[in-house]
């Protein structure tokens, strides 16, 4: 399994608050043509709502997160870049699809995952919330690269992470640790 890409940067709102518009700019700069999503409360206002107002990338709404794994896989086979925008609860619900399609088939499934109830400024694996604390160890166990996106400075990780996922044809998870501002 590939080396993980866990960020060990000091976790804080480095560089200021997360900006939804900057994240969207990075998503577009990454060549993402489709965002496949089920609403996530962390990214609802700052990311999903403005994405829904734009024509590009095209928003594909799904009923369950594992559908998105399949859709992104089909798009990847067509040479199209996609981002799955979900909550960690949905990611956990989709573990078998991620295991089979993303990891075992070695496909560049890019997930942007809002961490429901993560305390701002606290590393995910140090969260008091069980549902947050287990996310990174599960990704470690599956050999999936991940990056913590907590402050404005972290948005610079997005494009390299997506480019790397496509270059290596491997999945990646971008963990959104606090609510981005809509601006």
């Amino acid at each position, binding site marked *: 399994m590939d080396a993980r890409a866990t960020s060990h940067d000091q976790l804080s709102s480095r560089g200021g608050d997360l900006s939804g518009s900057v994240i969207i700019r990075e998503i577009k700069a990454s060549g993402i043509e*489709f965002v496949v999503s089920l609403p996530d409360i962390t990214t609802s206002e700052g990311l999903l709502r403005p994405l829904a107002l734009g024509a590009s990338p*095209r928003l*594909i*709404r*799904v*009923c*369950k997160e*594992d*559908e*998105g*794994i*399949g*859709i*992104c*896989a*089909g*798009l*990847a*086979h*067509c*040479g*199209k870049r*996609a981002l799955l925008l979900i909550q960690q609860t949905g990611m956990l619900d989709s573990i*078998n*699809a991620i295991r*089979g*399609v993303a990891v075992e*088939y070695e496909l560049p499934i890019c997930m942007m995952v809002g961490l429901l109830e993560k305390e701002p400024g606290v590393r995910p694996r140090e969260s008091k919330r069980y549902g947050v604390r287990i996310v990174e160890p599960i990704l470690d166990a599956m050999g999936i690269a991940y990056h913590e996106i907590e402050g404005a400075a972290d948005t610079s990780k997005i494009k390299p992470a997506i480019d790397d996922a496509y270059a290596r044809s491997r999945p990646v998870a971008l963990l959104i640790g606090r609510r981005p501002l809509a601006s």
Partner: protein
Amino acid sequence: MMKSDDCLKALARHVTDADIVVPVYTAAFDWILIRPHQLNYLAHGAMGLASSHGLGLALGRPDKRVIVLDGDGSLLMNLGSLVSIAEAAPPNLIHFLCENGTYEANGGHPIPNRRGVDFAGFARSAGYRGVHTFSDLKIFEQQVGAILAEPGPVFVDLKVSPSGPQNRDYSLLHGPAVRAATRAALMAS
């Protein structure tokens, strides 16, 4: 009730070299014998995701017709995909269902409420543009060509009997060489 492989043979007569076909498990093992082709997209993991892969392919290649050959047990695990497909509304997606009433690839156990469930009703109420049901092979043979020319998303419920014994070598569906060949063929086509 129709034989599944007879239906697939009738369908294969209308499938072109440009089409992408996404067959699931039991249908896939019949299909790869009936119509081996590099644009058969066979690796879609488990738990009923073929229709979602089909949606991704249809969105990614609007120039191509995408034909999903789903199973009823598979679709029951991914029913929400009917609604997602209806909203995305790809005009190039034709979604066939081989309804045999069983989880045939997993021992032939019946699906829940096999005599009461209405898959065509699901697709219709989800918002598919066209919905058809067939239980007579001759009628299906007469109409399948025209159905493939309809704007999608179209759902076609085929009432079939179980296929029976098959050589279910799953490496033929999602082995590394098969996956690589499909990916290369898609990128080259």
